[in-house]
């Protein structure tokens, strides 16, 4: 009898310990979640406070009872936010599209075509992966400037339409497609290009989608190159646009309008992420880095 109660006691104690462990885990995870979410909450909140109300708060208020959308109106009328937005959209779409063509062709050549020096060339390609952009940006800046392509879309787009890493990723994927398919297509008289379009691209669609998503994130957030290559606000992207807004926008420091602009800039990628959550996370863990 004595033994039994002891067992019950031990069991209860271990259950208790497991439960407190769980509770502490949830508490800490929630704490970090709050730290992550708080800036987002703050920008939404500030963006709906009126300019007068915001500046009257010596102690910042955690909520507002009279939300207003006037800041969004200011953000779109006082600075060319719509322009920055469209520019970024054009930049992102064109860069991603051109890059896809370039890397699909190159990956196909490495995966399926035979030519002299293939292995040597591929090794050279791979070694280029180690080159940090900071090293090449200086000359690229000079090249684009000398070509008179500052403040043009061509100047913005051209240096970022190839990625050795994505060529590598896609080549690996193309190689997994059974070679018999290719042989069969050749027997049928299907040309290489048609085969690439009709067979390889559809089969590799998941990898291509991953690459597209990663490239879109990269383009939407790119700051350094756009800042170097544009000084005409007509060609600003959202990143240097927001920096411009911070330094000279809205006449006086209008934090609520600034936050409205930040919301407008942040929403597209967050929506994209929430729709393609699984794909984005799988893609990033396969090929993303940041920082």
């Amino acid at each position, binding site marked *: 009898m004595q033994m039994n109660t002891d067992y019950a006691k031990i069991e209860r104690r271990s259950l208790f310990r497991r439960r407190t462990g769980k509770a502490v*885990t*949830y508490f*800490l*995870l929630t704490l970090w*979640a709050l730290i*992550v979410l708080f*800036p987002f909450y703050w*920008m939404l909140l500030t963006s709906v406070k009126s300019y007068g109300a915001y*500046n009257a708060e*010596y102690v*910042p208020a955690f909520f507002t009872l009279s939300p207003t959308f006037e800041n969004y109106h200011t953000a779109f009328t006082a600075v060319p936010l719509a322009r920055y937005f469209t520019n970024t959209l054009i930049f992102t779409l064109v860069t991603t599209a051109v890059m896809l063509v370039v*890397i699909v*062709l*190159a990956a196909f*050549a490495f995966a399926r*075509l035979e030519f*002299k020096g293939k292995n040597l060339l591929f090794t050279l390609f791979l070694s*280029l992966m180690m*080159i*940090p952009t*900071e*090293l*090449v*940006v*200086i*000359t*690229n*800046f*000079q*090249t684009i400037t000398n070509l008179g392509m500052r403040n043009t879309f061509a100047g913005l787009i051209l*240096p970022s*339409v*190839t990625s*050795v890493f994505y*060529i590598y990723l896609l080549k690996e994927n193309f190689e997994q497609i059974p070679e018999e398919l290719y042989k069969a297509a050749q027997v049928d008289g299907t040309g290489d290009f048609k085969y690439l379009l009709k067979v390889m691209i559809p089969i590799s669609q998941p990898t291509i989608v991953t690459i597209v998503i990663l490239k879109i994130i990269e383009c*939407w*957030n790119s*700051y*350094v190159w756009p800042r*170097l290559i544009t000084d005409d606000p007509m060609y600003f992207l*959202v990143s240097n646009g*927001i*920096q411009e807004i*911070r*330094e000279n926008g809205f006449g006086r420091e209008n934090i609520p309008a600034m*936050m409205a602009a*930040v919301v407008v*800039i*942040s929403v597209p*990628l*967050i929506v*994209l992420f*929430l729709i393609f959550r699984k794909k*984005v*996370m799988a893609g*990033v863990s396969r090929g*993303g*880095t*940041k*920082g």
Partner: protein
Amino acid sequence: MLKKNLKAWLYLLPALLFLGAFMVYPLIDVFVYSLEEGYNSASQTYHGVGLFNYSYVLHDPYFLQAVKNTFILVIITVPLSTILALFISLGLNSIQPLRHAYQTIYFLPYVTNTLAVGLVFMVLFKKTPYSEGMVNLLINWFGGQSVDFIDGPYWAKMFVLCFYTIWVVLPFKVLILTSALASVDENLYKAARLDNTPKWRMFTRITLPMISPMIFYLVITGFIGAFKAYSDAVALFGTDLNAAGMNTIVGYVYDMLYGNSGGYPSFASAAALILFAIVLTITCINLLISKKHVHH
């Protein structure tokens, strides 16, 4: 065969053109620039060849400040973010309900524009004559003194920069470590439980060795990424980082190239190559250490 060769090169042509023009040529050119003394951007002339650019950069107080800032940032954020990510991933892996919700939230900073959200951090930490700011409000609640984190003392600014950097880099690390933890063979834990192995021992003897390759991968990429820090600092302190005393090495390179203090591609090249040498050295050291300690 010749026709076949030709066709392959045709497929490769766009990639080769772009890589040649914007990767290979600049790579050679950056060395050339860094050796051309007294290069003039406007007339594209120079008056000598030598190591003067390197010596100038290494004696420039702005560069030394940038090196100091970058090293402090690296030394603080890389270990801290990796350890924090490890704890978060362990927590995530030990729960079932709400796990996906937490994962989604933790990932959000990855898909946000660094410049835009940096502005929110600036607002949160800034102290103005009209308002103490959100963070100072918290500090006051706990009985502390208000500090201006954006225009105030050096360590306050460094704290915000480190905090924001960690906030930005954590999503990637948490993602990688969570999937690494999930892929550890469940049978190893079962066997250990049968032997009544204590939890801490299970962690150091099973979990840590099994995920050590991923931890080292994160440390290596973390070092490389942190040495290239720039846009986080711009987001918090504005484009004139030298005036704020918060410049980074990459920031110094761009300031030399362009902007009010710009027009000196030679100095920029020398600084970029010094940065590359530092990163290469650190990466090699990391690889050597990882060879010794990583379980494969």
